[in-house]
């Protein structure tokens, strides 16, 4: 029987605050730089929700590729040309919980 693909929802935030879109763009380009377009394609990378002004976003990926996503978030050092870091607030198995954490942080 085919095995169900497990997914994880990662809540990320930028420090200092920038727009949510910049965060997502930076994570995606960092992932592509580290693991290539093919790596990005098979990782199940999908942006689920972006909190525009708060610099918070929820990104989904397959559990198997979670370390890759975490490394991609960790390797971001600049956002909009300025020194920055991307932190993970939580890693969740459900979108409901991920949203809860993101909204509590806001």
């Amino acid at each position, binding site marked *: 029987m085919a095995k169900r693909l497990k997914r994880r929802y990662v809540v990320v935030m930028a420090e200092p605050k920038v727009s949510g879109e910049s965060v997502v763009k930076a994570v995606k380009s960092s992932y592509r*730089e580290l693991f290539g377009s093919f790596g990005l394609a098979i990782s199940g990378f999908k942006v689920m929700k972006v909190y525009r002004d708060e610099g918070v976003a929820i990104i989904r990926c397959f559990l198997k590729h979670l*370390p*890759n996503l*975490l*490394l991609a978030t*960790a390797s971001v050092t600049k956002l909009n040309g300025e020194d920055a*870091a991307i932190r*993970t607030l939580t890693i969740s198995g459900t979108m409901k919980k991920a949203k809860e954490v993101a909204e509590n942080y806001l």
Partner: protein
Amino acid sequence: MRRYIDLWVRCESFERCLEMIRCLKRLGFSSAAIELRGECVERFDHLKREAEGVGIKLYRKLVLEPSTRKELLKLLRENRGKFEVISVICRNLETALVAARDSRVDTIIIPVNPGYRFDKGVAALLRNRVELPFRYFLEDRGGFLRTASEIVSVLGKKCGIIVSSAGSSSLELRNPRQLASLLQVLGFDEERALDSISTEPVKLIEENLMKLSKNYVMRGVMRIG
């Protein structure tokens, strides 16, 4: 529950250091080894008290970067009793071979593109742990991943690998899961990757605190009572 330690944080100014300590707490660390520079050297006790207030235990770390074997041995002789953690950045094979087997060295750091081969010959001599600073990865991703994957493939499960941030500002610090993801990408399973920032450094610091205590006589001999 795991206790996470960042085994290399570089501090130059007191205020910045306090900010980094608060950031470490926020990221989920319970201890840190600090390489002190400038004014922080004299104000370490003050810094330590402040950190304990925040909930972080601080340890002193010395990072040596000798160019010859003789220089390394001299520095170790002078400093071993003063620091909880001593790391050596091995710029050449001569220092790497000595640092790998000297019991006064806690961790060895292989720089990116070291200019010598970290092969089975060096790995066979290795008694100390190998440290992978995350800052090196941020500076040169490709070069670091190449060097780190060579180290991991040569060492296998022979000795401990520790991942530290080596950050000098709060924006260079990363949380434990992000640090561990580096080893996971290099082929470690999740538990072993997390051990590299919790169990391994905790063991190292406990061994060294025992060695620095008054009751320590020599290897394997402790004064009781």
